[in-house]
């Protein structure tokens, strides 16, 4: 998991797997970011081949924590497996999902 800042937007690039092993780490990191209000976060799934229900849970918790402090979260680069999972769980209606990182970043600067 890597965290970087770009023009006031935080980008978290997750690893090959977003599973029960790393879900707590992601939640912790986002909770910290959400201490600052109006945090703009992009979760870049470019490297992530596999997500499980713990990973989904961490994403839901992250979005919730950010919204509570008037921030927001977008998701970029879902793998085929992630897309299928988001559709199955209907999380594709909860998350704003972009096919590439630029789209996700621009959606923040546009608004």
């Amino acid at each position: 998991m890597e965290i970087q800042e770009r023009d006031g937007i935080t980008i978290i690039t997750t690893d090959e797997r977003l599973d029960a092993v790393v879900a707590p780490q992601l939640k912790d990191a986002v909770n910290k970011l959400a201490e600052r209000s109006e945090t703009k976060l992009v979760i870049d799934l470019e490297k992530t081949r596999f997500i499980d229900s713990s990973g989904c849970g961490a994403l839901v918790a992250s979005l919730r924590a950010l919204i509570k402090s008037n921030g927001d979260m977008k998701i970029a680069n879902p793998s085929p497996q992630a897309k299928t999972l988001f559709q199955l769980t209907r999380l594709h209606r909860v998350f704003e999902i972009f096919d590439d990182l630029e789209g996700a970043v621009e959606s923040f600067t546009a608004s």
Partner: protein
Amino acid sequence: MDDQISVRIEVPAEMILLRPLDHFVRIFLGQLPEFSSRDDLINDLELAFDEAFTNIQRHAYTSEKKGPVSIEIKVGSGSLEFKFEDRGQSFDPSSVQAPNLDKPSEGGLGIWLIRQVMDEYLYHSEADGRNVLRLIKHFPRGAGNSP
């Protein structure tokens, strides 16, 4: 079921085993002719396996030190079975409520997801304390060739 292949794995139900096991399953299945170029199917099976192991780690063994889990993977000519045996807390899957997908929450998706991607979710507890979970997926013979 002459060409059945079967694998048994016994590990402590520790989180450190999740990824080695998931990779084992993925690479093993990926080499079977039934699943060649069926990434979608392999993703589903890896997910079911992952959720089942995570549940045992998290719910069957709630204390810090985890007990053992015995795993069997059986691939026959028309079906695949993951069998998990633990010696921890038992539960009644029929009493688990389906998640409300309109109100996304942090948990409660595991069993539901397994049921979405597998054909059967069979759970029972033995008198000797073993809890047995069998996940079964049927696929047409030669599924790999006619997706």
